């Protein structure tokens, strides 16, 4: 860690925590059924047209069905727009209809807040698909996550209640009062930095110098020609122009970061200069990713009328986040020992950022690329400003582990906090076993039904990740997608499944995942990784809300002190990470040892 990276990290963390507090209070106000300002303009007309009775509460099962119906409509709509985009307007590049398997995968991906991208935006999607299908789901999936979290929190506060709020009201309010105003401000800021926002066709400019390159020769049949050995015949070609992609990008990127979605407008996501043009835009986007997830901890404290409870969860998240960030920044600053052996300079100085620069951008350097990798995987954002596939083995292992913890270190908007609350319930259960008392959290007894639901919510992702990885590695179609040889190739598959099942969406992008096999496998993992957790969470809320709230006594285990924070971190690490240690040993750990091994050998050779 250099002084600059310390400064960057401390400023980032301090700003984040300082702004999360007021925002968290505001979101708590939105969760409260009391009327909001401007509601006769912003809210009520929508309810009238939709036939929603805003004051009418829902049981947990009605809420769950509403969530599912709304998200299913979204999935069908996103699929349909992609399949028909060639016939629809706002398609200046004449993009063809997206293939069925890719459209299925992308539809599930955006509805589940994963935003895994099997496609490359600037070469696949029309402007209409981007704004009307994909950007909209950025809003809806984020609002769904926050709404489900509201329900779980209300369950702790409720005293023998039957209803838990109204999904339609929560959805509308979060969209209109929280996500939309923040996105408008952020999008305009992004345009000021250079993020494109227009509906023009791609621009063709004559470059300063012509580029001579090799491309596969196309035969008379329209297929690439092959020589006698079956290898492609190459021919020389010259390009005198460069195509600059355009589109309504800023509006989509603002909500992509604020809603922990992460689906890029362009193929390389936030590494693309038109998505993330300057160090300032980079810092602001980094900030936007964690802002709402951090704020929701304060929302929680506010709603349960005990700020310390929210701060305890935030402290546990922050502790894991700090350790992970420092580790990744350290590993990436070290650079690649195999390349260090060549005639290059990897040392950080005032004239260069140095370190492991493969797959990174100069304007971000190693520090903010490494920090971004942790931020984006701590939150279930999944946007990238550097190529994770080219990270050092341990630098890349940390983001993978952050996802495997279940996306609870900040996590997705809403989903991160309800995930962390599940771990908090697990923690009081384990602590209860140790001292022989019925576990309780915020005055609610945790009993057999809750523990069953908690177990489902915690076990469903490891099941999807490990079984999915096994299936991919045992099938020809799964192995065919691997780009890098050896242990790193295994990491690519493990990363993909970890990302999909935990609704993150980042990738070791060497993996060729836009195939019917991966589109289907990852689509299934994303769907169940989202809704096989949401339903148990809502069921727990239903069960808890019906219970009486017990008074705090001398025998109650406090859930706001350092002891609880340490126990919670321990539970997240043990329950969340232990499952994956064997798999991680086969991927990043082996690869790290191979890298270290090379240096030792070459050092000996030099003696």
């Amino acid at each position: 860690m250099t002084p600059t990276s310390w400064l960057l990290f401390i400023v980032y963390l301090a700003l984040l925590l300082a702004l999360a507090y007021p925002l968290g209070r505001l979101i708590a106000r939105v969760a409260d059924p009391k009327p909001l300002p401007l509601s006769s303009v912003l809210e009520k007309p929508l309810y009238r047209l939709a036939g929603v009775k805003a004051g009418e509460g829902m049981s947990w099962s009605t809420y769950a069905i509403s969530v599912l119906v709304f998200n299913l409509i979204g999935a069908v709509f996103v699929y349909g727009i992609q399949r028909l985009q060639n016939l629809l307007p706002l398609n200046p590049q004449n993009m063809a209809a997206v293939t069925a398997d890719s459209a299925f995968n992308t539809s599930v991906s955006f509805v589940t807040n994963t935003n895994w991208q099997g496609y490359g935006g600037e070469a696949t999607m029309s402007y209409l698909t981007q704004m009307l299908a994909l950007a909209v789901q950025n809003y809806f999936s984020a609002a769904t996550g926050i709404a489900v979290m509201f329900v779980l929190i209300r369950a702790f506060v409720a005293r023998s209640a039957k209803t838990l709020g109204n999904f339609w009201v929560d959805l509308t309010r979060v969209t209109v009062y929280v996500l939309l105003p923040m996105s408008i401000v952020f999008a305009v800021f992004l345009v000021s930095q250079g993020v494109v926002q227009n509906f023009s066709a791609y621009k063709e400019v004559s470059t300063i110098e012509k580029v001579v390159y090799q491309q596969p020769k196309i035969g008379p049949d329209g297929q690439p020609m092959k020589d006698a050995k079956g290898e492609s015949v190459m021919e020389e070609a010259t390009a005198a122009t460069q195509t600059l992609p355009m589109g309504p990008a800023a509006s989509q990127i603002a909500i992509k970061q604020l809603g922990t979605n992460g689906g890029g407008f362009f193929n390389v996501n936030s590494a693309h200069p038109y998505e993330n043009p300057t160090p300032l835009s980079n810092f602001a986007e980094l900030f936007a990713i964690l802002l709402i997830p951090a704020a929701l901890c304060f929302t929680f404290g506010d709603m349960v009328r005990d700020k310390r409870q929210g701060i305890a969860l935030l402290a546990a998240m922050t502790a894991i986040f700090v350790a992970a960030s420092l580790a990744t920044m350290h590993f990436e600053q070290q650079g690649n020992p195999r390349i260090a052996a060549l005639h290059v300079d990897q040392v950080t100085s005032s004239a260069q950022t140095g370190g492991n620069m493969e797959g990174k951008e100069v304007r971000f350097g190693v520090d903010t690329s490494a920090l971004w990798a942790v931020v984006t995987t701590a939150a279930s954002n999944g946007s990238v400003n550097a190529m994770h596939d080219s990270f050092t083995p341990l630098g890349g292992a940390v983001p993978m582990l952050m996802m495997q913890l279940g996306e609870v270190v900040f996590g997705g908007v809403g989903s991160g906090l309800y995930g962390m609350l599940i771990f908090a319930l697990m923690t009081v259960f384990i602590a209860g076993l140790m001292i022989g008392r019925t576990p309780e959290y915020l005055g609610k007894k945790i009993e057999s039904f809750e523990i069953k639901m908690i177990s489902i919510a915690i076990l469903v992702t490891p099941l999807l990740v490990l079984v999915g990885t096994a299936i991919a590695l045992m099938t020809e179609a799964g192995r065919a997608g691997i780009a890098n040889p050896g242990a790193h190739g295994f990491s690519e598959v493990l990363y993909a499944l970890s990302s999909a099942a935990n609704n993150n969406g980042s990738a070791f992008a060497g993996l060729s995942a836009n195939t019917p096999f991966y589109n289907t496998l990852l689509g299934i993992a994303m769907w169940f990784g989202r809704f096989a957790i949401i339903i148990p969470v809502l069921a727990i809320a239903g069960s808890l809300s019906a219970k009486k709230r017990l008074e705090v006594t001398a025998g109650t285990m406090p859930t706001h002190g350092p002891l609880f924070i340490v126990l919670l971190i321990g539970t997240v690490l043990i329950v969340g990470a232990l499952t994956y240690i064997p798999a991680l040993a086969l991927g990043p750990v082996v690869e790290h040892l191979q890298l270290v091994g090379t240096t030792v050998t070459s050092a000996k050779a030099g003696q």
Partner: protein
Amino acid sequence: MKTYLRPALVLFVLLTFITGVAYPLLITGLGQALFPAQASGSLVERDGKPVGSSLIGQAFSAPKYFWSRPSATSPMPNNGSSSGGSNLGPTNTALVDAVQGRIDALQKADPDNKQLIPIDLVTASASGLDPHISIAAAQYQASRIASTRKIPVEKVNALIEQTQEVAVLGFLGEPRVNVLAINLALDAIKL
């Protein structure tokens, strides 16, 4: 089921209109009004004709120009319509081979230059469109450009000094030079 379908469908349509039509149109209007150049791609012109974008890197291979970072896009480098990184893993021998190949090309173009080569000049960028190189990577190329253009190396170094950008507030941004900008400035030098 009807109790679910009506609110679901109506709210889906209304909120889709708000977030998927009104919102992007509003941002386009605001963006084009307040920051027209940025919203349209930050184009750079020479003699009244657009020659690129200050944000999108171009490929240079002539010895008289500063070279951009290696680009892994296909089929040609710096392909603006298909961004991408190499995605080569750290232990992949193809990575070491590619880096060695770029070192050889740089040394062949400037055989007397024995300095260590800054890492960003021999590794592929994330986007394949990186508009910048590090200040060190620009300084490394100064001798080649000076001898090709037959101008004093001090003049090239002074140009790097003028064009370079450094961290703001001590942590925002990395030491860098915009390659298109400095190459246009090179061409504009009057002898």
